[in-house]
């Protein structure tokens, strides 16, 4: 499924001739596992309030190519709609919008650093309601340069939000280059631990490692602490010429590059979602 999602990502950004494939490729494996194996969710009865279901908030809003691909494959909306990504009138806005009626979207995001706060608020709302379900949130490592991420980190610990499971796509890349060359973010694991979170580090491209990480994270319910899963990953993973570089953060493959990428991902004919 994750390979299929990668093909969807590339076709989606190529049809739109716009979008962010790199981070979408690095988070494709664990988001696929999250939506297909981990989350308690039901697309047919989805409502924005998330009552009685797990919730997911994408803090790194530019990862819409993978987010929409996963939502479509999970049954939230028709696959063909991926072909409308970023076009005028689409429900699949460049960054997630709650204003177009797209099922599965709990909150707008795109301006970075804000989704973890919303996820923490939603987790607190679930606790106040006695709703035992979980709230998941995905942040980028570059995004974690935003101070608000750490405000939310403090808030979630103070309010003992053990129903909050955050993930960081730790791919080491951001727009201007490797994260350590842009802002010197340092050791995220040590930072989140010192913040008081349960921290799990996993291989973001190894399905067993991902599954194990989610199982460990879910076991944190009752611990009184929020959990952060740091997924070690490669930007552009799955296509050799896209992997391990920041250059595909927000660039779109040319037609011949798409063809080559799809060949590497199993040679499905172009245009077939």
């Amino acid at each position: 499924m994750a390979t299929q999602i990668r093909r969807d990502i590339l076709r989606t950004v190529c049809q739109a001739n716009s979008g962010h494939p790199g981070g979408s490729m690095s988070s494709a494996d664990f988001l696929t596992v999250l939506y297909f194996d981990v989350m308690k969710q039901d697309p047919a009865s989805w409502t924005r309030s998330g009552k009685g279901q797990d919730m997911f908030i994408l803090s790194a809003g530019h990862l819409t190519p993978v987010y929409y691909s996963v939502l479509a494959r999970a049954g939230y909306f028709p696959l063909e709609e991926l072909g409308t990504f970023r076009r005028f009138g689409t429900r699949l806005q460049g960054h997630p919008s709650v204003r177009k009626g797209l099922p599965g979207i709990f909150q707008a995001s795109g301006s970075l650093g804000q989704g973890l706060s919303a996820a923490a608020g939603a987790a607190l709302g679930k606790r106040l309601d006695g709703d035992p379900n979980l709230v998941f949130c995905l942040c980028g490592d570059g995004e974690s340069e935003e101070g608000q991420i750490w405000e939310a980190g403090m808030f979630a610990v103070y309010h003992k939000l053990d129903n909050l499971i955050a993930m960081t796509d730790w791919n080491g890349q951001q727009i201007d280059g490797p994260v350590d060359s842009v802002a010197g973010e340092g050791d995220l694991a040590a930072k989140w631990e010192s913040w008081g979170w349960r921290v799990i580090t996993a291989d973001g491209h190894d399905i067993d490692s991902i599954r194990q990480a989610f199982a460990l994270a879910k076991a944190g319910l009752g611990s009184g602490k929020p959990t952060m899963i740091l997924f070690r990953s490669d930007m552009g993973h799955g296509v050799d010429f896209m992997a391990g570089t920041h250059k595909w953060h927000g660039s779109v493959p040319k037609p011949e590059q798409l063809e080559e990428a799809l060949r590497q991902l199993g040679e499905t004919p172009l245009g077939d979602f």
Partner: protein
Amino acid sequence: MKKYTDTGKKDTRSGFGAGLLAAGQADERVVALTADLKGSLKMDAFAAAFPERFIQCGIAEANMVGAAAGLAITGKIPFIGSFAEFVTGRVYDQLRQEVAYGNTNVKIASSHAGITLGEDGATHQTMEDIALMRALPGMVVLNPCDYNQTVQATLAAARYEGPVYIRFGRPSVPNFTPADEPFVIGKAIVLNEGADVSIIATGHTVWEALQAAEALEASGIKADVIDIATIKPLDEEAVVASAAKTGAVVVAEEHNHAGGLGEAVSSLLAARRPTPVEFVNGGDRFGQSGTPSALMEAYGIDAQHIADAARKAVSRKK
């Protein structure tokens, strides 16, 4: 002219505190968040009555906005409270994405608005908040004029489905509106009827407008006094009708000129009923330290300046 009596000076923020408690009693979905200003926002009574529903966020306003949005998504009715500058300018992008664009049912409680915050000076005095909040698509902007009206405005904000900005202040000011008058969002309140000039005021300037109208009456000028408790959506019909009747308008607000009520009213009248308009506001300036009354006088936002502006507006009639 209709007589209004000050039943005893009270701060409008205490009106918010009382309204919040009442809203919390009326609806268990109401929750309150603050960024280390529980006492200043008069949230103590709510926090004591509903400890589970009072959420301390620490000095981290950006996260407070996002957390409130998350709570609202799950069905809560969150009020976030801080000083006006720190729940507007400081967190503008958060309000824009998480609340306005995200269309979450968050209520922004904005205390110590304007220069009447007083002694702390310009870093804490915002004269730009109405402009910022008016600019957000769909944002309702309330600016009640006294304690009683602030209680009712808070209750109305809680009942309304959607983002609301409610602005109130620190100093004790005359309390003169009826305690039991329900607040209708989007409705202007005509406090006095006169044929010669329309004084359109909001917040703390409404009482000043009434004092100005009394002084004007003594010199033979009869004034409409209109309380714009809802700045957005503006009660356009009430403003246009009054301007059509009097042919001269004064707009008074404890806010700078750019983006304030004065610009909202004058752009409306330019389109629908061109009328001479005079402005009583802070101009294009930062505040400074001082007592509230000394600052209002120095910045030209008191009854005397409103009366002067009214005479000027009347003299401009063709």
